[in-house]
């Protein structure tokens, strides 16, 4: 058994956990973050990528709207490499309630969400593909954020302040000594080794899984209702700024340009188990119909991948648990000292990716209060490593980079213009990573061919790493193809069928991957 000593253990490697560990570390505590899988593998990575301007909530949730507007500015600055300042539009289609336009406009003023009404002609000039029959258009400061890049940015910032980030460490038990938290017991999923992390405080930021974690400290009945939402990535940027449907928050009300794709989202259905999220066919159809309202002809455009995420919404008893959209999106902090008589444990849940930093600030403030420390939050002031204020991500970056190094380096994932060097470097830093782990940071296999041309290359290069043998390299290949398919088959139609046929031709036809020596046990992590 491995043993680590620290002050604070943060459980959960999503946006919230990464924000918390960064805040804790920046306030001078020793900190360790643990996650059962990779960073951003849960809800944070299964998201449509919107950095809210606040516009979505100006009518339904004034406080969230104002918070979003403020945090938007901060996140844009401290995570410049993860945030593209796309701008956004709220458009009012003719079939929607027309009086919502005035309500929305009033709400924007009241909540101080920066907005400007523009002419239909101007809206169509900015976004030529949107529905030309819209009756009103408002411009807002929406952005697009890469959740993985943001989480890794926060985590790397925390590391600079001495924090330790332990991915693939599954929490088995929170050890308490009477009314005080003492340690967190984990299992290293890659090696099977047990790890005990001695600490004085635990912040539970496990999102949809927070109830399970609280129960490990014998704090029961923490009910987090997972609200499942599906998202579909379209092959290219049908729009270059965020396009919102100007209605009361509903399903399929947004199209976000993120990197090279545009993502339509989302649905909201209560899920029983955040680990078993499906992508039902009727919800895909619902998204297609919603897409048609925003961009006529949407169904003819190419969908490349779909996924489902679980919003961690805290049940507050005011509305039916079936209708998660109307539950509070605001954050909630459970103080288990008050609630369960256990000191040294806070559960943070709810909220939005846009306000992840603010959530962290609140919960760490509360921790400091409990510990009797006065240490101010500084996370809004300092940019994360490799991010420079004012130099925000733009979609042309990779094309520009490859224009420079194209003759000297190889392009392994051609769809997403991922260079060999970037892949080999990351593999060197994270030799235990699966191809999906690498994908989340490099966009390997996330373009139109969905791994058809790059999977063999990625596995072949992985084998050249000294710690990876043929069994694992072949397993990585098999696992990656399996996982890509999970997000492919629910949206397989149109051009993506041709792609899948060609990919099958390559893997089954030419390479005969099905008849490679099969492993005794399929690789999972």
């Amino acid at each position, binding site marked *: 058994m491995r043993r680590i000593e620290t002050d604070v253990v943060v459980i959960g490697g999503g946006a919230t956990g990464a924000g918390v560990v960064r805040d804790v570390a920046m306030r001078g505590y020793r900190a360790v973050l643990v996650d059962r899988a990779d960073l951003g593998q849960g809800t944070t990575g299964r998201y449509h990528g919107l950095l809210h301007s606040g516009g979505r909530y100006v009518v339904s949730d004034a406080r969230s709207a104002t918070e979003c507007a403020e945090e938007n500015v901060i996140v844009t600055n401290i995570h410049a490499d993860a945030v593209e300042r796309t701008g956004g539009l709220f458009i009012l289609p003719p079939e929607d309630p027309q009086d919502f336009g005035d309500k929305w406009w009033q709400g924007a003023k009241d909540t101080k969400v920066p907005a400007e009404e523009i002419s239909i002609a101007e809206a169509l000039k900015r976004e030529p593909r949107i529905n030309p029959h819209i009756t009103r258009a408002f411009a807002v400061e929406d952005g697009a954020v890469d959740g993985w890049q943001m989480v890794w940015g926060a985590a790397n910032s925390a590391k600079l302040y001495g924090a330790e980030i332990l991915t693939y460490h599954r929490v088995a038990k929170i050890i308490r000594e009477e009314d005080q938290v003492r340690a967190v017991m984990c299992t290293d999923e890659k090696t099977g080794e047990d790890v005990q992390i001695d600490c004085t405080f635990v912040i539970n930021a496990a999102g949809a899984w927070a109830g399970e974690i609280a129960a490990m400290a014998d704090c029961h009945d923490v009910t987090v209702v997972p609200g499942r939402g599906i998202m579909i990535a379209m092959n290219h940027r049908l729009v270059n700024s965020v396009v919102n449907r100007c209605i009361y928050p509903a399903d399929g009300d947004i199209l976000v340009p993120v990197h090279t794709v545009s993502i339509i989202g989302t649905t909201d259905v209560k899920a029983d188990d955040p680990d078993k999220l499906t992508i039902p066919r009727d919800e895909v159809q619902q998204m297609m119909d919603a897409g048609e309202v925003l961009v006529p002809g949407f169904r003819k455009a190419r969908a490349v991948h779909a996924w489902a995420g679980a919003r961690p919404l805290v049940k507050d008893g005011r509305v039916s648990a079936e209708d998660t959209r109307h539950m509070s999106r605001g954050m909630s902090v459970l103080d288990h000292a008050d609630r369960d008589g256990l000191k040294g444990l806070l559960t943070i849940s709810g909220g939005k990716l846009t306000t992840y930093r603010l959530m962290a600030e609140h919960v760490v403030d509360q921790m400091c209060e409990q510990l009797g420390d006065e240490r101010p939050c500084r996370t809004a002031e300092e940019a994360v490593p490799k991010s420079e204020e004012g130099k925000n991500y733009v979609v042309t970056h990779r094309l520009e980079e490859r224009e420079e190094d194209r003759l000297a380096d190889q392009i392994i994932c051609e769809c997403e213009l991922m260079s060999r060097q970037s892949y080999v470097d990351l593999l060197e830093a994270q030799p235990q990573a699966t191809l999906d782990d690498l994908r989340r940071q490099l966009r390997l296999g996330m373009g139109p061919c969905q791994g058809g041309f790059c999977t063999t*290359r990625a596995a*072949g290069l992985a084998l050249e790493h000294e710690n990876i043998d043929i069994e694992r390299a072949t397993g990585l290949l098999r696992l990656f193809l399996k996982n890509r398919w999970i997000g492919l088959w629910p949206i*397989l139609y*149109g051009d993506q069928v041709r792609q899948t046929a060609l990919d099958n031709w390559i893997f089954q*036809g030419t390479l005969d991957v099905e008849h490679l020596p099969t492993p005794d046990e399929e690789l999972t992590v």
Partner: protein
Amino acid sequence: MSKIVVIGAGIAGLTATLRCVAAGHQVTTITKGIGGLQLGQGTMDILGYMPNRVERPLDDLAALADEHPDHPYAILNADAVRTGVNYFAELVGEDLLVGDPERNVFLPTAVGALRPTALAQPSMMAGQLSDGDSVVMVGIRQLKDFYPGLAAQNLARSTLPDGGRAAVRATYIDLPARKGEADATALTYARVMDDPTFRQLFVTAVKKVIEPGEKVGLPAMLGLKDPNSWREVAEGLGTEVFEVPLQPPSVPGMRLNQTLVDKVKNARVRWVYGSQVLGGVAENGRLTGVVAGTTGHNVTFPADAVIHAPGGFESGALELDSYNHVFERTFDLPLAGADNEELLHGNYWGEEQPLFRVGVRVDEQMRPVDADGSAVYENLHAAGGIIANANRWREKSGDGIAVASAVRAADSLSTPTTAAASGAMDSKGDN
């Protein structure tokens, strides 16, 4: 002499075209672009798995037909396949395909699987390994589509057809195809390998990394036009070499494609390249012409008979739309298997996906038929990937089905005694 329109220029379309020319027909071949031959592995598959590994493909066809009476091989029996395969082999010649359709060979793939196929290019044949063989897989640093380690180590842990094992190791050479280019495709290499000077450089580089007595596995890039390139490499190295096909661009596939396209052009086939067929003109249950979208205006090509060889889902000839409706793009032909509620499922490594079995059902003359079994058009024949009920990539049956159906279609053309009148009656898909 009849006017035949062939739609498509993949393995089936090219084979049908040449077969029709040989029969004295006047042929127009219309293709949207370059056909699929150069996407494949460049060998002739007949039947590789059913689902166990097949040793004698023609012998096993009957068993396959018994088990799957709707399989294309149940309609095309072993004789038809033999005829088709032999015809195709004759067309491309012994520089490009050798072997015996009665007996499969098992050749290493780029990830190190042993892949069954019937005929293969002579440059690949030394890849048939036996117990105790010493093999070295040689990669090129500047070629990202071949990782010799992956091929070598998987091959080394595979059981060979004779039940034995080979000792396989991997190594690299560092040799840019063109100065200052770190990222080249197999095609870039194949082009420079046609130049004897580069070939010599290549041989010199490989010689340094191989041991005496080793067979040498190389990525398939040993020359594009010069059929002796690979032989010279083998002679230069003083040992047996074999080419391993890669993902596209497939150099072996390009060799086959170029050979056939040259033959088609030299035969003065009207080669309408870059045009999509939009539909047909029908009269009294027969097609009288085929409408193609050329630039500016559509053109109707008169036809006494049509051979439809547009491929399957990979080419978009068969489409699945966003409402989960499958259809045939050109003639809206009835499709077998399309009304399956579960066309797809979520297990990548599980059972086959039923979608990719969907296609047209054909009669003995390869004519698409409706649910009652009657020909949709008296003179419309289908060939290749559009035909239903095969699991081509898994079975490794696509090439055999293509050439057998193309030859059968060409040989059973239903043409009237007098040339059909043109005249647009029922123009479909004309937009």
